[in-house]
């Protein structure tokens, strides 16, 4: 019962630190809505892909929208390191409709360090 709005095209910033911290990257889940959500005119291709995960309450997938928090190497303060702690590997998703286990697998792949589009390292 969840639908994910996933970034399909990475945003970039000239400053590497801002790019890493602030820019959404391909595979990042921006929002999680309940099934049947009426998406807006721009909430689709080419910038986004809507991924449906039937049978899973949206609340169970909200963790996909959490940022990666950590200590800034320059200031020593706790801060956001990346927009999303985990991301989906869009290229590995076989269909538009997923099971919850597909999402979990994709997440594990990312946290293990796999790079989805060659632009992002963690």
């Amino acid at each position, binding site marked *: 019962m969840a639908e994910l709005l996933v970034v399909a095209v990475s945003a970039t910033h000239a400053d590497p630190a801002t790019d890493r911290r602030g*820019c959404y990257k391909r595979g990042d889940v921006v929002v999680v809505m309940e099934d049947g959500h009426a998406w807006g005119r721009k909430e689709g291709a080419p910038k986004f892909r809507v991924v449906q995960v039937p049978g899973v309450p949206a609340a169970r997938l909200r963790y996909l929208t959490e940022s990666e928090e950590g200590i800034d190497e320059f200031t020593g303060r706790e801060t956001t390191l990346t927009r999303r702690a985990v991301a989906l590997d869009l290229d590995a998703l076989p269909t538009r409709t997923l099971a919850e286990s597909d999402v979990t697998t994709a997440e594990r792949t990312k946290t293990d360090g796999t790079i989805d589009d060659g632009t992002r390292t963690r």
Partner: protein
Amino acid sequence: MALVTVGPSGRDYTSLFAAEAGEQQDLTALAETMAFEMDAMADPADGAKFDGWTVSTTYYVILRGASGVQADLPYGDSGYRLTGSATCLNLIGLQFTRVQDLCLITSDSGGARKALLGGGGEIFDRCVFVASHTSYSGNLVEPQNHASQDTVFRNCVSVIVGTSGQGFVHQGGSGTARFYNCTAIGGANGFDRDFGAAQIINCLADGQSGTGFTSTWETGSGFNASWDATAPGDDSRQSQTFTFVDGSGGDYRLASGDAGARTFGSDLSGISVGPFSDDFDAIARGATWDIGADQFVAAGGASPLLAVLQAHGAFIGSAH
């Protein structure tokens, strides 16, 4: 100017989160300012954080309520509401933003979250910031001025339902926070300057369990009003009783019988940083300014006929 719409249906995006992700870009390269216009809705996103943009004092982002659904008092379900248990709106990574006519409501019960985190260089007009949980204990509005730029709040209102927490709190940085004609209701403290420089003029604090104003303020501060003996600066009014249109119901506009704030403000239409001439309802303040976000009779906005009718009690309730 580029316009992006956010609303529950028939708009570009259905949440501010998605709008920011979809439009994130270098506005200086495009030589364009981008306005996000929000329809009446409770935004389903739990906190919106802007970062990864390139902006300047010339090309920046505007966040505003759509015509007819701007932030209002009492706050409620009529306009766009950015709500959340997390920080509702985080602008640390997006300087120079203009935020207009928005209502931010945090439902958090602790002290870690805020309605607004500012990064510097922003101008906030006619916004309502709310902590709706009675146990809230944080800083509701917290500009930090990382950009070495001044942050200006004009005609904004903070409402803390409980008796803890602080309304407007400047947290330092190399820029100056400037609070003009703002109203702080409830909480422990209304206005505070923890670090850095902050100027405060024409601001009203009422209903705090601690103090209306704390700390010391930049030269030029004055014309403030408080229920206790803390309103800072020259020409300020301490230990006042304020009469609102419906204080218990959440409408903190000044009532006709108010003797604590009406007519005691300073004209800021010519102030060097962030001059303005309207009030919370975007009505011209005229020649004699009130203290706080609301101007009871906007001499420049009310017609002579309306002013005469008001003077003769032709209306029941607020003149707004």
